[in-house]
């Protein structure tokens, strides 16, 4: 397709993104912000696709537009009134001892501070653009991308993004799974799951009956296809989590997660645990940490990704539940 047509698409996407970002950030009402943010995520998916980043587009469609949106919507709907309450009001409620420190919430009310910060942001935008244009116009060496493709054959997969994520920079991904685990443990430490949803009506049940199997099927497909085409554990995990979220929205309580605490713990830990175990096994075999033997690499990556998908999906579902599952017997379904 020729450049002019692409230019029209680019301009439309950029206008849509900028106006949606601005509207999301300046909305007076939190619920409106959330809806605009979801629309922003949808358009963003198109932009990633246009910039030839299908892996990122998949993740954005699953997480950015879908799950983050559901998380945020649940947050505004849970406390429609309080979610809007400003930090200023909250700080006023702070009944602990006198705070000696200057309170930034008070500072914010000052018009002068608002303008100073706005001018600072404008200046930052100019500096950023200046530096970025310098960087993009200078002939930066492409060595890293070249060495990725040079070593792709030894990585065990043929999708370069999966190779970077699960082989060349696998250590990042291991720590990222630890971040997910930290978040869910932090959520557990904070509270129990929020109240559930009303049992679904016939229309919703119809949606559930075809959407959930489709999501599970799609998750399996993404996991498998990730080795040689866009896809992988994260996209698959988010898709699987979406199935859980739908079930939860339809009023089901345990949405397929085990009730037993120890089984639940295993599911949460298995992603990072298996990853670490593979890494340490390599150490025991006299190889560097996470250095897979090339012949085994493909299988090991698939194994790690499967475990990671399970943990990611469970983590995201529990994040949507907003706390540790209750042990009480379920009477509603």
């Amino acid at each position, binding site marked *: 397709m020729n450049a002019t047509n692409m230019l029209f698409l680019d301009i439309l996407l950029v206008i849509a993104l900028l106006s949606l970002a601005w509207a999301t950030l300046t909305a007076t009402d939190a619920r409106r912000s959330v809806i605009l943010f979801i629309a922003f995520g949808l358009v963003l998916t198109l932009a990633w696709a246009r910039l030839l980043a299908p892996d990122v587009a998949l993740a954005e469609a699953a997480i950015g537009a879908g799950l983050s949106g559901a998380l945020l919507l649940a947050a505004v709907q849970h406390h429609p009134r309080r979610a809007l309450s400003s930090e200023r009001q909250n700080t006023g409620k*702070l009944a602990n001892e006198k705070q000696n*420190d200057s309170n930034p919430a008070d500072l914010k009310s000052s018009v002068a501070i608002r303008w100073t910060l706005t001018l600072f942001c404008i200046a930052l935008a100019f500096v950023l653009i200046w530096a970025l244009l310098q960087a*993009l116009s200078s002939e930066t060496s492409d060595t890293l991308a070249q060495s990725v493709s040079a070593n792709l054959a030894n990585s065990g997969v043929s999708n370069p993004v999966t190779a970077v994520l699960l082989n060349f920079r696998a250590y990042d991904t291991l720590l990222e799974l*630890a971040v997910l*685990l930290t978040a869910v443990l932090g959520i557990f*430490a904070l509270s129990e799951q929020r109240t559930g949803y009303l049992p679904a009506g016939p229309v919703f049940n119809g949606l559930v009956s075809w959407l959930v199997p489709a999501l599970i099927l799609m998750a399996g497909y993404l996991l498998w296809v990730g080795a040689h085409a866009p896809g992988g554990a994260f996209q698959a995990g988010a898709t699987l989590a979406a199935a859980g979220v739908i079930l939860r929205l339809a009023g089901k309580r345990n949405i397929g997660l085990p009730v037993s605490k120890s089984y639940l713990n295993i599911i949460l*830990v298995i992603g990072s645990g298996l990853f670490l175990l593979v890494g340490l096994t390599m150490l025991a075999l006299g190889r*560097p940490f996470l250095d897979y033997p090339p012949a085994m690499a493909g299988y090991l990556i698939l194994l790690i990704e499967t475990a990671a998908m399970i943990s990611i999906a469970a983590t995201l579902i529990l994040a949507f539940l907003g706390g540790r599952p209750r042990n009480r017997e379920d009477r509603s379904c």
Partner: protein
Amino acid sequence: MIDTLIWLVALPLASALATQLLPRYATAIVISTAIATSINAAALLYAVATHGVMLYQIGGWTAGLGIALRADGLSALLLMMAAIVLLASSIYASAYFNDNPLRRRFWPLWLLLWCSLNALLLSGDLFNLYVTLELLGLSAVALASLGGKTAALQAALRYLLVGLLGSMLFLAGVTLIYAGYGTLDLATLSRVVAAGPIAWSALALMTVGLLLKTALFPLHFWLPPAHGSAPAPVSAVLSALVVKATFYLVMRLWLDIFSEVVTPQAASIPGVLGAAAVLWGSWQALRAERLKLLAAYSTVAQLGYLFLFFPLLQALPAGAARDAAMGGLVILALTHGLAKSGLFLAIGIIQQRSGHDTIRDLDGTAQRLPATTFAIALSGIALIGLPPSGAFLGKWHLLAAAFSAGQWLWVVVIMIGTLLAAAYTFRVLGHAFGQQPYPRHPVTIAAEEWPALILSAFATIGLGLAGAPVWQLLKVSL
């Protein structure tokens, strides 16, 4: 031997998972992990001292394509301090949370925090540093909010927002670096980076992000409530280690990787902010009504001293004077880490025993808890910078550097800061000593009092009298 580096990250992570799976054995797992990791850190320190810089290429890929872990004298010293503080705090926490139901939530997050600290100090890759920063930030927030009521949750939420904003600014800087230089590896970057808009704006973004997390004045507003309302062992680690980890990164960027890019004018900015932090933090500590807030404001001030070194190190030419000042900076940071964690642990005991930590009502603490009061006094000595504490050496070198660089302003700041520190320390001790009979057993709760005492004693006596190896180790640099 060289596997030490990866085990410093892998072992706490593995134990975190194990404590989540086997909560019944959590304490045993944590204590044995703490001992093993401390031995590991000591082994690393020894290896760096004898063999020089340590490098570990994860996955066997060359750094750049893959991620490398690196340890030089600076990171090994900080890893060792982290290990000592965390070992002592783990023992303390096992008694502090004794049969509290929070315990099973606490241990996995605690070990994840340790894992992220070690990973940050060892990381040789800019994006990996971003991931470790996020891991550190989230685990710290989760721990700070543990079991807390409104005030603690409020503080934790602000801490989280500030932390996320800081990491995002850091990531923006990393993005510019990748756009401009096509690499994320720190060693490669330090070879190719050149003064220019890309390096300046990337450094500025990363620095602002890190200073937010390090709580340098005036970006410190979140620290006193967060450190003041967390459980005691968490406060100790937040004040002693978590802010130090991001400070370490600022050091690494300004004094090592971007040292060719930084101009004297730029280096005076952290200096001026540091001076303001020293004065403001000390003043607020003097006015604080609660011990924990006093300790938290004192952290703001002590971080200020560390930033005073930046303009001086920039002004001094490479050579003996600069090396001496560098050692002073590191020993000041180490002393503060040990002393402040000791102080927070001691405050935790007082809080648990008397149900409050209001300074005015401390009368008789010296009689009821003599060992704890002694720990507070020892850490006070280190915070003021009296001899023989490590902070005395640090401030000595700070003053020497200020004289030889001819930057007299800092001398005044150091003087005033020291006087204020003496004032707030003696204010606490003045209240703690009262006219009451002493008990027969000075140590009443061994598992909690010993860790506090040892940390403070180490800061005051250990580092002061045996600080010379620090200068030797710092000669091993990337």
